[in-house]
């Protein structure tokens, strides 16, 4: 037992969890805790908006697999975190958020900057808790870290009243916490593995759909082994991009609304579809009734409540993706010979690939977004990390940016949060300072969190923002063109701001290349300089992202042009 203040206990608890960096913004109700950071080696990265702090923690978590931590004051500070926490939680990213709260005797009396953040965050966190005395802090912090990063990962919020931070009390630091009601299923049931293997053993046209769970459980090499053993094409969901290298011969590309024609066609023809760590989001499946109608579906997921939620499956494996894939491969090796690269099924894959090879369009008079993204790839190191904003830019990045390793393509999938990519890139840079980090942005999204430029510059967390600048809320405009008879409303962003000047105002570097040579030069300079750089690339405001499966349609009904 030691005698200390709640704030001291808080810092000590973070240190025990080996936290070395947090992202936050202070305020009255969290000041005692902020003050205690003076006596700690934990780095406090000052965000300029709490949403940015939460996204930074999220980007840090996704790039590293370690927990991202953010912190805010009560009331408006706490509510500003909400979008960030929700974004992390839906994408199963381990983020722990700490909020200050008004003193205990003021709670419930509409005190200054009081918000019931426990009530507010209940449905957008995996777990939340308010501590009521200093000695509860070590256990609450331990619990938050444990729950956030086990089973299906997610965000956890801990709310700490101000007086609990300043009061002193005898307290101790538990080595472990357990909850009667918290169970997760890592070890798959051998019978479920048997059934899955039996189905796969008979498959003539096996296909794998890999989701974010493969990345979360670091199961990429197991995925590759199984795919290569069966010679099964692999599609990734948006969250699964990076689970298999883009240049792997078995990679069919992303699937879903803006998936490749190849992946979406193969999913329609497969006879057994093994879905790993994915939750059948509507953006991935298109019309549920028409999803992969020729296949028997096997679903591997660590979250039992995901099974049969959106799509009925024939067989399930509840458990960790790495263990499950390994278990299935072991069984298959006994009953099935390795697949052949000459199989009719892989020939079919090749046919699709040739049929839908995306033709290169020329950059005249505007840059074409796909070629900008490909140019970026060419001049980035292979291990570079890319984050994305949301909209057309995100889909161009998903379709055209080749990714070679897990945790190097980070995007807001479940929520599609505009403004996520830039602060997430800063968080990723904090996790991987040795690696080049680029946010592939739209001008609209970048505007939502551009104030993070201050953090990037002041905290020496240099990243590159490449804006595919169509002066439009481009994806909104695309839908208005395709589905609303070109009636643009609230989609044009006008001529401002000048992103080069904006970057310079924050002490960053800005470029506005006018041709491909200048674009290449700007990218090279940005990569070499290790200085926060905004590259503003003007693109055609009327350009659409294709392929596209219109909302409500089956994956086979993709459009390749307007």
């Amino acid at each position, binding site marked *: 037992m030691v005698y200390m203040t709640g704030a001291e206990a808080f810092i000590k608890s973070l240190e025990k969890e080996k936290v070395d960096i947090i992202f936050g913004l202070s305020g009255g109700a969290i000041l005692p805790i902020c003050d205690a950071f003076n006596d700690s080696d934990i780095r406090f990265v000052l965000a300029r908006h709490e949403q940015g702090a939460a996204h930074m923690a999220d980007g840090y978590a996704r790039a590293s697999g370690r927990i991202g931590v953010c912190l805010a004051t009560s009331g408006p500070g706490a509510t500003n975190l909400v979008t960030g926490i929700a974004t992390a939680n839906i994408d199963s990213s381990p983020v722990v958020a700490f909020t200050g709260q008004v003193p205990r005797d003021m709670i419930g009396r509409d005190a200054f900057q009081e918000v019931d953040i*426990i*009530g507010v965050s*209940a*449905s957008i966190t*995996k*777990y939340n808790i308010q501590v009521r005395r200093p000695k509860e802090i070590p256990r609450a912090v331990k619990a938050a870290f444990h*729950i956030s990063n086990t089973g299906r990962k997610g965000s956890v919020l801990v709310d700490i009243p101000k007086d609990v931070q300043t009061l002193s009390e005898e307290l101790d630091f538990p080595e472990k916490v357990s*909850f*009667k*009601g*918290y169970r997760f299923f890592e070890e798959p049931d051998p019978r479920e593995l048997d059934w899955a293997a039996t189905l796969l053993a008979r498959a003539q046209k096996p296909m794998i759909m890999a989701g974010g769970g493969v990345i979360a459980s670091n199961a990429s090499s197991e995925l590759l082994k199984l795919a290569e053993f069966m010679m099964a094409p692999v599609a990734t969901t948006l969250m699964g991009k990076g689970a298999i290298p883009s240049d792997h011969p078995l990679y069919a590309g992303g699937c879903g609304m803006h998936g490749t024609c190849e992946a979406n066609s193969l999913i329609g023809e497969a006879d057994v579809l093994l879905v790993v760590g994915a939750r059948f989001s509507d953006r991935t499946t298109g019309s549920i009734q028409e999803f992969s109608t020729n296949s028997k579906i096997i679903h591997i997921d660590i*979250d*039992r*409540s995901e*099974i*049969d*939620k959106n799509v009925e499956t024939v067989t399930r494996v509840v458990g960790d993706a790495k263990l499950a894939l390994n278990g299935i491969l072991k069984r298959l090796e006994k009953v099935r010979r390795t697949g052949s690269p000459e199989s009719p099924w892989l020939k079919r894959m090749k046919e699709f690939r040739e049929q839908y090879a995306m033709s290169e369009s020329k950059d005249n008079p505007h840059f074409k977004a796909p070629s900008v993204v490909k140019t970026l790839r060419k001049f980035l190191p292979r291990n570079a990390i890319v984050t994305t904003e949301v909209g057309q830019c995100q889909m161009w990045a998903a379709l055209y940016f080749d990714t070679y390793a897990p945790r190097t393509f980070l995007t807001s999938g479940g929520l599609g949060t505009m403004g996520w990519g830039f602060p997430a890139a800063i968080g990723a840079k904090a996790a991987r300072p040795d690696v080049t980090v680029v946010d592939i942005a739209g001008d609209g999204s970048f505007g939502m969190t551009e104030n993070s430029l201050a953090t990037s510059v002041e905290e020496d967390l240099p990243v590159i923002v490449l804006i595919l600048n169509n002066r439009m809320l481009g994806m909104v405009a695309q839908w208005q063109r395709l589905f609303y008879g070109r009636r643009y409303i609230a989609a044009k962003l006008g001529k401002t701001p000048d992103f080069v000047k904006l970057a310079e105002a924050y002490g960053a570097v800005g470029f506005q290349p006018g041709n491909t040579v200048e674009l290449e030069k700007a990218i090279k300079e940005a990569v070499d300089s290790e200085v926060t750089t905004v590259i503003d690339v003007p693109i055609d405001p009327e350009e659409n992202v294709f392929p596209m499966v219109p909302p409500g349609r089956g994956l086979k009904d993709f459009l390749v042009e307007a």
Partner: protein
Amino acid sequence: MEMPISTIAFLVENKPGVLFNVTNLFRRRGFNIESITVGPLENPELARMTVSVKADAKIINQIVEQLDKMVDVIKVKRLDPIRTVMREMVLIKLNTIDPMSREEALRCVNEYHGLILNIEPDSIVVEVTGEPSTIDEFIRKVQPLGVIELSRTGVTALEKGHLKL
């Protein structure tokens, strides 16, 4: 089509916020909870909760999985109506100014094995316990006699035999 009523039993941590989190999940799907009962167990750190809700069975199964995921929910189970005993109590205040209706009221209470808890010159308060459908029936019967007010507890339930949550 009228949705069947499902009864779900929970073992939960007996602490603030748990009820909120549980009911929040039903709210999210737009389900009106027909009844909810809670009480502590032998171990006061735990509580048992019974929720009745009208909803499609498939969705209920999925909600049960999601409830099971909650940290504060220790166990949760959808009860099979055939393997379960269910009870509910109603307190009901009847107008008895008219001697004829008073007599009829007493007869009904008797028939449903009710208890008379309070007698005033012009009203009585009675207690009836039974299956929810029995309570419905009783209320229908005494309705014409003049119900002043009533309060139902909601359903509580246990499985038959050695089954246990």
